[in-house]
């Protein structure tokens, strides 16, 4: 069989699309090494000083701590709620089951600005509670659809007879869940948790309305570029991108990404 050494149209198109998706980020990567104190292209010299600057800027340190704390909390809360909701949606037949499914998914379709403002109003004019508490609730809402989607997909892929079999062998419902459902859901749950953390970590639009003196990392970055024009934010972005790539790599290695997007 002879095969032309010329790249096929499919290959060219594929490469073009991938380049199109990656190019903006590649630009950030290049700019982050620019020695000049401007967000400009092409770079005039090479330097790592903006990376040093990332670690010496106090608002970023606060931001990372805030964002991680928020991500961990909303991940934990939404995982518990999400797994319970998914079990109800997949395993039980009740009035309003479809409605519940749609309702859990609803935050995906509400503009984040609306969610941010709504939460701000609740915090300050109705409940009079701290913005931080409301921020946790907000992030749970944002993250929950992703958790539920993934857990539902994994549950639907699981044979319901496994739980029945466990119960007929003498397992009470909670034992069947603990010894059969949960271990089999394991990888799917890990994937959902990673997704929750990533979605919470990089949320900006809705979060912006509720942060006070201790901003999250994306808000801190935004506040930084409002006053400074140097590539520090590009360096920060490159670092978070690296974190993202690492997360994707680990998920692919441990779970297989196709399980997540099923």
């Amino acid at each position, binding site marked *: 069989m002879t095969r032309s050494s010329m790249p096929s149209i499919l290959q060219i198109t594929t490469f073009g699309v991938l380049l199109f998706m990656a190019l903006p980020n590649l630009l950030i990567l290049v700019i982050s090494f620019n020695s000049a104190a401007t967000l400009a292209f092409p770079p005039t010299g090479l330097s790592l000083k903006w990376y040093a600057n990332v670690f010496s800027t106090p608002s970023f340190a606060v931001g990372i701590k805030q964002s991680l704390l928020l991500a961990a909390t909303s991940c934990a809360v939404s995982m518990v709620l999400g797994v319970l909701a998914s079990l109800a949606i997949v395993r039980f037949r009740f009035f309003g089951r479809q409605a519940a499914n749609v309702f859990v998914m609803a935050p995906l379709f509400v503009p984040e600005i609306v969610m941010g403002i709504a939460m701000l109003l609740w915090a300050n004019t109705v409940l009079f509670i701290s913005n931080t508490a409301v921020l946790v609730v907000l992030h749970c809402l944002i993250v929950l659809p992703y958790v539920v989607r993934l857990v539902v997909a994994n549950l639907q892929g699981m*044979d319901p*007879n*496994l739980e*029945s*079999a*466990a*119960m*007929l*062998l*003498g*397992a*009470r*419902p909670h*034992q069947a869940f603990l*010894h*059969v459902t949960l*271990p*089999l859901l394991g990888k799917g749950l890990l994937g959902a948790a990673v997704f929750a953390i990533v979605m919470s970590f990089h949320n900006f639009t809705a979060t912006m309305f509720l942060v006070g003196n201790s901003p999250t990392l994306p808000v801190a970055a935004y506040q930084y570029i409002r006053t400074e024009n140097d590539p520090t934010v590009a360096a920060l972005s490159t670092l978070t991108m690296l974190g993202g790539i690492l997360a994707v790599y680990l998920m692919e290695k441990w779970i297989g990404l196709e399980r997540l997007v099923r």
Partner: protein
Amino acid sequence: MTYSLNLEKRGVALRGLTVDLQGKRILDDVDLEIEPGEIVALLGPSGCGKTTMLRAIAGLQPPLRGDISVGGKIMTKVPPYQRNVGMVFQNYALFPHMTVADNVTFGLRMKNVAAARRDAVQTASLAMLELTALRDAYPARLSGGQQQRVAIARTIATEPSVLLLDEPLSALDKKLREGMRIELRALLKKVGITAIIVTHDQEEALAIADRIAVMDRGRIAQIGTGAELYHKPNSRFVADFIGYMNYFEGTVGIQTGGLLDITIAPNLSIRAPSAQTIREGERVSVGVRPEAIRLAPQKQASVPGINAVPAQLVSKEFLGVVTYLRFEDDSGIERMVIRSGEDHDLAVSDGARCWLQWPEQASIVIAA
């Protein structure tokens, strides 16, 4: 240390069992009595309610009305994990994250059985199902037949009072399936457990079960041994479900000496033993099994005890052990005759007209 499983044979009884699913009646007032140690097959087309009946006995499907009792104890309200009813699922439902040995001891671990006894039961169950060599394997690595044995071992390790099997052979490939029928029956008898098996395959039911309950639209149409169902079907549904049946429709005439005279065409009547009370003038179907029919070139003038109907040979299908001969009678209805081996009846040539003859006693009257 050797341990033998303590399997007590218990009977199962269903009384007026009625199940609705999403507003549809799936089981309709079913009564069924199963003897201790008996193997009963629930046979019927898909949607007849056989799997629902199994799930109801297991406690996975709550009935609308009626009672289920096992060993004389009413179980209707007992949850599945306290019923002590074992079930082998159609796809076996083995726990994929556990080894064969862990699958087998799952039930004992859930019931907090002491480790020493657990190990003994595990050893005994694995040995009984010839799985000892596979104890550390994961289910995904096993063949269909091995998975089935693990499913049975896992179930009997909990010493259930009755074993339910849902289409146990359907997950196996066709070649393996036929051999496994006899093996499964031998296995169930060796274990010595009361078993209810669901199948849509009549041969499977005949090969495995002591008695067969033929189900039709949520009811048991007839229950009996294979021979009873084959030779004394109470309806066309049962007659058609097990084997092939030729039907002759006619009007009942006079009755003499326990034999009904049935007119099936002008100047043509056959005789059949009357089972129920059937009145003169009533329309009935007379069933005749294809292997009961012999061929004759001429009508032998009134041979006593023999029915004769003219027909024309359409096709001959040689299948080795048997040959299928398809006839058409004068009104164009297909008649099937099955003859075996070197039968001289097979000498008939295509298109030839001859007489189909069978003993009057081999005619089965079925209400039309």
